[in-house]
């Protein structure tokens, strides 16, 4: 099976409008036919942070029924067998402690990226 690494850099791009991160969503759909993995980098490393409280969206009296829970979406991806890693330096740069992350996400140091990329047939950089 074709092995693909989805590298997600853009965090929170239209996630409230879409009620999803559309790259995580697309990756999940592709995982039915391709051997997918995800690397979170830049602002997208925030997706691995365990989030207990997400504010509602209420505009003009209309409420968003399904505010995105991106840590749960990452969890769901891993439950489907999609390995999720994050760029360690980007987590540190954002002052996020590893203890705040959901279980199962793996750190990758920048120096390890070439070796990581070598494991895949294709790299999709979003």
């Amino acid at each position, binding site marked *: 099976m*074709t092995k*693909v690494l989805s590298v997600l850099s*853009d965090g929170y*791009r239209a996630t409230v409008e879409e009620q999803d991160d*559309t*790259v995580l969503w*697309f990756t999940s*759909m*592709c995982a*039915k*036919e*391709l051997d997918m993995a995800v690397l979170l980098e830049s602002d997208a490393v925030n997706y691995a942070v365990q989030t207990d409280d997400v504010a509602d969206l209420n505009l003009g009296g209309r409420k968003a029924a399904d505010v995105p829970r991106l840590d749960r979406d990452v969890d769901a991806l891993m439950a489907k067998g999609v390995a999720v890693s994050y760029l360690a330096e980007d987590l540190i740069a954002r002052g996020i402690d590893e203890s705040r992350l959901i279980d199962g996400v793996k750190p990758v140091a920048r120096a390890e990226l070439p070796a990581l990329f070598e494991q895949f047939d*294709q790299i*999709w*950089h*979003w």
Partner: protein
Amino acid sequence: MPKTLTVLLMDPPYEDERTTTAFRITDAALGKGHNVRVFAYEGAVSLTMADQAPHPNPVKGTSVDDERHPTTKDWASALFGSADGRLEWINCGLCVDERGAGNWIEGPRRGGPADFTAWVKSSDATLVIPTH
């Protein structure tokens, strides 16, 4: 021997130079006799909207005729016209629905991620051009 390139686009019209670059890559590949498959995801489904219309330019003082400005659907039509059957284009259906972008030019068809993965598996190369 012709090769097959799959390209995924995400940018809506008029938002980024990536769209023109993608069109250039598509045109160049077709010109060399290769096959190109375009998967339009998210805002890119609007690239082929049939209702696009050019406009005059009040800053330059030019009329629609003066501007001679192809819209993105005109570029896509031109690519289909020159492709001799070697261009396929899928607009992601769920993205089309939530954007109301269902009225498109002749050429594209409706599809989804399953089509993209099938293309990935059967193409010589895949290029994902994201939006930001």
